[in-house]
Structures are given as structure tokens and as C-alpha cells.
């Protein structure tokens, strides 16, 4: 039989408006690493070749395109690199379970403020922080990837709703700023 064609949730959609850019991005493989009791040492050893370690709560770290994101107690998502073989953790492929949206621009914080109930002021949520929070009614993982840049991981099946909410907010923020659409 012919090869199956892969499709992302939003087929790489993007939008730029009023200084805000919203785009679906491919972050490569996503692997959940859940520490088993007593597994910390083995996991540290397993992550060593990537130059990464299990992140502190509400944070993420990057090394050469690979990123490790705190996602819960004793749990992290490794993105952008294949997960090395390791003991001491339950390792589960999550690559297809999430859609990742990149939101950037000077008004990105204003767009987020429409749906995300947490303080995303730079001082409170600096680059390198990651939160499990809500985007309107959806659970998301929110990363501060730059002073004016965020990444939002949302359940793949809800990607269209997430896009719709962010697109609507982007339009409203732009309309407030007097941008003609």
C-alpha cells in the first residue's frame, strides 16, 4: 500500500496582524518522561547526552534544539529530540497528541491576556518559564520563549478552537489599536 501522508492539526497555518504573529509550529518529537520512584539518577544519566536535566517546576531548558519542559510533578516533556533510552522513568510518545502554536510580537501579551488567567508580565513570567494553565476552556502548556514570544501546547483535537480563540483575540487587539483589517 502507498505511504500514508502525515498532516498536522492546522496544516501549518499562520497569521500576522497588528504586530502579532500566530503560527502552528512543528517542534519535532514530544516525549513524556515521568520519573518512577527512585528513578531520578537513572533519568539524569539518560538525559546527559542531550545536556539537559529534569527541569524545575514551571520552567523549561534548551540545548541545541532540544527542549525539556516541566509539565507536572516528576514529569517533563522532551521536545525537539528523540528521547534517549533511559531507565527510571515511564517514557511515552506524545508527538501526535499536541498542536503547538507560536505567538509573538509586541502585543502578544495582550492577546494572551484575553484568554489566559495568569500573570504573563515579563517580570512575573520571564523567558524560560513554563506553566500548565488554561486558554479559555482548554488546558494548555504555556512557554515564554522570548521577551515577546510564547509557545502554546494544546490538545491536538482542540487545535481549531485554540486557533479560533487566539485569532479572534488578535483581531480584537488590533481593532483596539486602530489597525484596519
Amino acid at each position: 500500500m502507498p505511504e500514508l501522508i502525515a498532516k498536522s492539526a492546522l496544516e501549518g497555518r499562520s497569521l500576522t496582524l497588528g504586530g502579532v504573529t500566530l503560527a502552528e509550529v512543528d517542534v519535532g518529537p514530544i516525549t513524556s518522561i515521568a520519573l518512577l520512584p527512585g528513578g531520578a539518577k537513572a533519568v539524569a544519566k539518560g538525559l546527559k547526552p542531550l545536556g539537559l536535566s529534569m527541569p524545575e517546576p514551571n520552567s523549561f531548558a534548551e540545548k541545541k534544539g532540544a527542549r525539556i519542559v516541566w509539565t507536572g510533578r516528576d514529569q517533563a516533556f522532551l521536545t525537539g529530540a528523540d528521547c534517549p533510552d533511559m531507565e527510571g522513568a515511564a517514557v511515552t510518545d506524545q508527538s501526535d497528541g499536541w498542536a503547538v502554536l507560536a505567538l509573538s510580537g509586541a502585543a502578544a501579551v495582550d492577546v494572551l491576556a484575553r484568554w489566559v488567567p495568569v500573570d504573563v508580565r515579563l517580570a512575573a513570567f520571564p523567558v524560560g518559564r513554563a506553566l500548565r494553565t488554561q486558554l479559555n476552556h482548554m488546558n494548555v502548556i504555556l512557554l515564554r520563549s522570548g521577551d515577546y514570544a510564547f509557545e502554546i501546547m494544546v490538545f491536538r483535537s482542540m487545535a481549531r478552537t485554540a486557533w479560533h480563540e487566539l485569532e479572534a483575540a488578535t483581531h480584537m487587539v488590533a481593532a483596539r489599536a486602530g489597525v484596519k483589517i
Partner: protein
Amino acid sequence: MRIDGKGLIDRTKPVRFRFDGKDYAGYKGDTLASALLANGVRLVGRSFKYHRPRGVLTAGSEEPNALVEVVGPTNQTPNVRATMQEVFEGLVTQSQNRLGSLRFDLMAVNDYLSPFLSAGFYYKTFMWPRAFWEGLYEPIIRRAAGLGSLSGKHDEGTYEKAFAFCDVLVIGSGPSGLMAALTAGRAGADVILCEESHALGGRLLSDGGTIGGVPAGEWVASVVAELQALPNVRIMLRTSVTGAYDHGTYGALERVGLHKPARPNLPRECFWRIVAPHAVLASGALERPVAFENNDRPGIMMASAVRTYLNRYGVVPGQRVTLFANTDQARATARDLMAAGVQVAAIIDPRPDAFSVEDCPVHVGAEVIGTRGRMGLRGITVRKGSETFEVETDCLAMSGGWNPTIHLTCHMNGRPRWNEDLAAFVPMEGAVPGLVAVGAANGSMSTHGALVTGHAAAVQAVEALGRKVSVPLPEAEDAPYRLRALWAVEGKGRAWLDFANDVTTNDVKLAAQEGFRSVEHMKRYTTQGMAPDQGKNSNVAALAVLADATGRGIAETGVTTFRPPYVPVSIAAMGAGGRAEGFAPQRFLTSDQASRDRGAPMIEAGLWYRPSYFPKPGETTWREACDREVNMVRQAVGVADVSTLGKIDIQGRDAGRFLDFVYTNTFSTLPVGRVRYGLMLREDGLVLDDGTSARLGDDHYLMTTTTAAAGLVMRHLDFVHQAFCADWQVRFISVTESWAQFAVAGPKARALVNSFLEEPVELPFMGVAPVRIGGVDGRLFRISFSGEEGYELAVPTRFGEALFRDLVARAETMGGGPYGMEALNVLRIEKGFITHAEIHGRVTAHDIGMEKMVSAKKDCIGKAAATRPGLWGPEREQLVGLKASAPISAGAHLFVPGTEVHRETDQGYVTSVCWSPTVDAWLGLAFLKDGRARQGERVRLVDHLRGLDVICEVCHPVFHDPEGEKLRA
């Protein structure tokens, strides 16, 4: 009438607007109220109950009279306060709550019926006959009394919700608010300054005066310029802070686009939730009316409002103005009017010791006791000692002193304190954690007092934030505030307290007389304070009258509870984005587009959208399509997307042990490569969910749940793990979204599946194996929810759409095709498989005939609780099948034929039904008392809702292939 050279309106920008079908001119910076007054329009509304002609009373959000409808291109907004609505080119407005025109409102007959319409009238008048209330009295009363009307259409306008965070929230931008914002802003704190109006400055814009040796307007302009330049200060105009909530959270409503012509994507309003550890309440004070006979005529206004219209909008509401006020401060209104060349006919001051320095007639120790002019004030009657006299006037400015705007301080149950000197309630300190009231809101009535307290509160906040600041305090007036409380002028006629709900002093006295002596009872009996203005203009005066009527002091009488919101908030703003499909997230399958391409109507299953059926040309009803799809699966092969089922990946040395603990049956003994059906109980012993779990490796399982309970089961597993076995070597995570999974069922299922596999596998029933499909690693399960030989093929979600399209296309070449939820349901009913229609939260394993699945060899969640008396035995309703030759319905109840049909003789109920093309009969699943022992009996099925009354045969729930030969083929 407009006064040249006065006001902050932009006279270079005229705008035209419409009120009640007539075009008027105003200027940018005008409110609807100021523009109408400038055009000499005094009559703007009708009162709630008596339909009395009413005019503008105030110049702020507390306005009780001037409520209008704003008519937009697609919507109509009722109860808009003309004092807050700014005019713009093309604004269309109309008066409301009238029958006929505003001038000739037919409902004004109510005013003549007022002796019958006093407080509590409908409790007394409309008690009998009882049945008439809902059908007759209430609709009439609702028509007669009321507010604005809606368009009856969906509000498709754009609304917004948003969150904001800051260090210091400043509420109000009068002298105290500006001083607080400036102080906190200079200290470098993140400041949000909310101002309800469209310009910063508060009363300074109306009252003038000097601050720091310069005119107040200049001081405001310089502070505003500095605040605008500070990157850490955010100014939110047209934003009313509506409520104070836990943890320093404040609700606020911003009028974003209501002052402009509608523009695509520009929100009309935004509902903010602002979180601030420190808040400064600089909300000022509200001037209070005095109750005297016929004090509600158009042309009678608050003194401060007259001053605002003059100084801020360059408008005088009359040619011959009179002032009735009991404070020194209110005299400024008369002085400003005279300075602007307006005639002041008289100043009436009830204080016998008041001064009289103004260059106009001043009557001290006098009171207004009556007014004339139904459609607009023409004159007043004044009583001084024993003599009474008339004064011709078309505008009466009144003031009974000021009430600090303390509402927010009471939103967390704080009770205000009575201050005898101010004759007003002031905030209880610390009533809302982190919030400090300053300026007039805290009873500091002078400009100096406002600056000092605003500054001090900001300093306290910035120091708590670990910052330092030094801002010099400018000089300002510090006149003492002197008044003699005057709530109501003695008299027999109707004197209004609550203009918005038509409550008079007589109503309050009547309430007291009839035993409603508590302020909360008086409020509900008279409806005082229950109108859109929430008693902002009337609460204190009403309770003062009540205190007097009941012989108590005001402090003792107390106040009613202040609740959010401070101003009316449109539901559209609070629920922004939540209309129609915005109500909840939508979850889409990878096969979604492919299903829609085939014309499948989509139905909601939780948040998911699933195809209901796949119509073929010539099929006119869903039943035709459904019957065909059922036969197709039974005779050839069908494909269905089952990705919505919950999938939980479970790993670790104790994974089997964990499953043994949460399932009633045993999974630790399941061989690798095999799948087992499992039943899960809640802690109370009732059934939580069912599904299959596969063993993928020694320490690796994959659990599936029903679509409906996917989240519930995940939560349950988390709870069990965290509460009872946190130290076990087990971890689990949802992989529902990671896999697209398709059921392939029917006699030709194996052939179809094998044609897709790079290496065909020979799977036993309830087997699982890794497979390669089209260059992709997938999983193949041999499980069935249809009663036919069935497989489920899973691939990573990104390949789902491609695989679904290929599977369906190839199935069609074999006489098969896709099937939807309707057929899926029929297939499972024929096979007697349960869903959450059956395991609805009130059934036990015994009820569904699965008590043998509760392993005797081990413990599990819910096992002990399931053995409680009453949860098993013949008195329970047990799962049975039903067969009938006429249509039956889910939700119907079952009775013994020949017995009466009522609650006591109820034998059970039906949970699922279908027409079975396979059995050629109507089939149902039902719960029947002692049902398993009653197979072969006949029961009477009754559904009053659908008018069904059918005799059914009680059967074993499995109608199709009871031995399971097809499954295992």
C-alpha cells in the same frame, strides 16, 4: 442651552445624533445627557411603575431616570444611561418603557392609580384567585412596569473578556486617584488607573479650583501627561470597577467601542478581571437627593450635576435656576451659574444658621415643599417658617449632602460605619484585604484631604512593594464640610426616594407600619434599591426615613448588603466569546473532513463531533442509512472512527498491580499481546466505566475508556494513585490524542485489515500486535463492539485522515463502507453491549449481570462498598433485553400488564432502543426489577412524553450471536 467658552467639549467637532426619531447636534466630548440638555430636551424617560415623566437627574453612572435604548445596526441595547453614553456621529437612541410616545405615554394612567399601587401592592391585590397570577396578573404587571426592550435577536456584537495584573490598582481619577497613581507610578510600581468616565480628573473637571497654585484643570493635564509617559502606568478610561473578590481580584467593565460607530472586531465592551495586591479606592462620593413632594419632575437635578453640565459640557439645564441644598459646598453651583451669566432665582437652604452672601435671593431655614410642571419644571413652592411662597424656575438644583462611594469596600461582607459628622456611611478599614479607601470615598471631603489620603495610600502600597518614593503634595482648598442632615421634607404628598423604582417616603413608612421594620425587609417589600442603579441615589435616605418611622437611629437601622456589580454589566461582556459554538471547545477527529465530504451529519459526543450516519443517494431518512450501514457491517465490512475513546498509557513494575486495584477483574495475569475487558467501580461500589486494556509489554499496558468517561477515568486513576499508592512503580498518561484508531468490523474485516498490513498477522480474538501500515508503525487490536469479527487499527494521529480515507475507499470495493454513530449504536444493542446509557452512575456490577467479574481473589476500589445491602438481589432493577413489534423509546417506564400505571407500580425503565434490521424487531435494553428471572415474561412499556404504550417481551440482553462464534471466527 450651551454657554459660550465653557466646557471641555471639542467645539470643532460637531456630531449629529438621533433621539426618539429626531436629529440633534452635539459635540465630541458630550454625553447623550449633556447634548440633549444643550438642545433643551428635558423629558427623556418614563418612570418604572407610575410612568411619570422624567428628566436627567445626575451626570454619572448612578443615573436612575435617563435610561434609553441605543439602536445599533444589528442590535438594540436597553437601559443605557444617557449620562454615560457619549454621542458620536450617527448614534441612534430612543426612550423606553412607554406605550405611545414619550410625551403621551398611555401607561401614565398608573400614576393616577397610585393609591392602589403602593408598596407591596401585588402581594395584597393579586393573591386571589391563585390561578390568575401566572396567566393574567403577572403578564399585565410585567408589561406595565418595566425597563427597556430587547431586539429579540441574538446579540452578535463583538465582546471581550480579559485579565490584567498590576501592583497597584487605582479606582477613580479625581484628586485622590490621580495623586495615588502619580505617587505609585513615580515609584516604578505597575499601576492600573481605572476611570469610569471618558476623561481623567473626576470632580476636578466639574468643580475647578486651584491645586498647587494653578487652575485644577492645568494640574490634571500635567499629571495626566506624566502618567501617560510612564511605561509602568496603564490608564483605563471608560472602565468601571464593578466588584471586589477574593485574592485581590477585581471585576471591571470597559466600554471599548460603545462611544464610536460599530467597527468590525472592535469589542463593544470588555469584562476585565484585574488582580492587584494593592488597591486604592478613590471612587469619590455620590450626591444625594432630598425627598419632597413631586421632587421627580424633569428639570430637578442634583446640584453637582448642574455644575458638571455647566463646567464640563458648557450646558445650563435652565434659564432661571434655583438651588435647594444643605451644604456650603453646594452654593458653588449657584455662584458658577451666576458667573456664567445664568439667572439664579433663589437659593433655599434648610439650615437656619447658613450664610447668605450670594448676589441672589437666599432663603435660609427654608424648604421646598412642592413643584409644578408635569413635563418639565415650571415652579416650586417654598416654605419658610409659617409662610409659603412660589418661585418660578425651570431648573432646581438639589443637594442633601454626599454619600461616600463605599460599595467596593463592602463586597466581601464588610459593613460600613456611620459617621455622624458627615451624616453618611464610611468604609470599615481593612474590609477588603489590600484595598484602602481614600478621599471622598473615605469621608475626606476637601481637595486637600483627597490629595493627602491618596498620596498616603500609594506610599503605603509602594513601601509594601519594597520601593521608595517622594512626591511633594500640592496645596489645595481644605474647607470644612458642614451640613445638617435633611432626608425628607415634611409633607403629605408623594416624595420620591428611589426614582428608578418609584419608591416614595410613604412606601417606606407603610412598610414600617406593616411590620417590615428590618432594612432588608423594607427593601424587598418596597423594591427600594432594587433597580438598575441599585439604590445609589436612595439607600441612605430610605433607611433614614425607615429609622425615623421605627424610632431608631440610622446606625442602629443599618444598611442593606452591597453586592457586585457596582454598575450594570451586560451578560454579553461577562460571557464574551461564549455564544453558540464558543460555549465549549470543539474536538475534531482526523476523519472529520472526510466524513463531512460524504455528507455525514455530525453529532456532538461530549466535546467531540462524530458522524451520525453516511447518507447515500436516494436515502431520505437517517433510518434508511442506518439500516443499510448495520446490514453492511453484518454482511461485509464497515469502518468507524473510534479515536474518541480514552486511551491511557500505563507503565511501571506495578502497572499490573495498579490495574488489579482499579478494575474489578485481574490484569496482572494477562499475557503480553492480549486484551481483556475490564469493569471499573467508583469508591461507592457503583459502576464507573468499562473498557478494554491491552498488555503491550511486561510493564506496559494500554487502557481504553469510553468516550464519555475518558476524563473521569483519568481523574479517578490520578486520585487512586495519589491517595492510596503514590509509592508504587507506576506512571500513566493520556494518549487519547496521540492515536487515530479505526474499527473495522464484519465478515470481511480480516481481509480488509490484512490488505493494509506490510506483514499480515494472525491475531486471536482479544489479541494485540504491533503492525506496519504504509510505512508507519501502528497497532492492531482484535476487539469488537459490534458482535462481528472486529479489529481496531491505530496509527499516530497525523496519519489518521490518510488511513481513514484509504480504509473507507477499499472497504467500498468489498461491498462495505463507513458507518456512523447510529449504526454503531444499533450494532451494540443487538449484541447487548452496554454504554453510559446503561452505566449511568446508579447501577452496580450485579445490576448489569457482571457480578462474576468482581474477582473474589483480590481487593479493588469499590468492592467492599458494592456488598452493602440494597446494592444486589432481586429487588434491584437488572439489565434485560426487550423486544417489541411497535416503536419503543429510551426513557419509557415498565409495568406489569394489567396493573395501573403510576409511580408505585413502576417496574423499571428503558435505557437504549433501536430498530434492529438484523432481528427485524424493535429492541431495547432496560432495567427491570428482578429482570434476569423474568425472561420470557411480557411487560407493558409506557412513555407518557411520546404517547407510547407497548407490550414487550423480556429477553436476554444479547440478541445477536449469543455464543460469540462470530467474534472468535
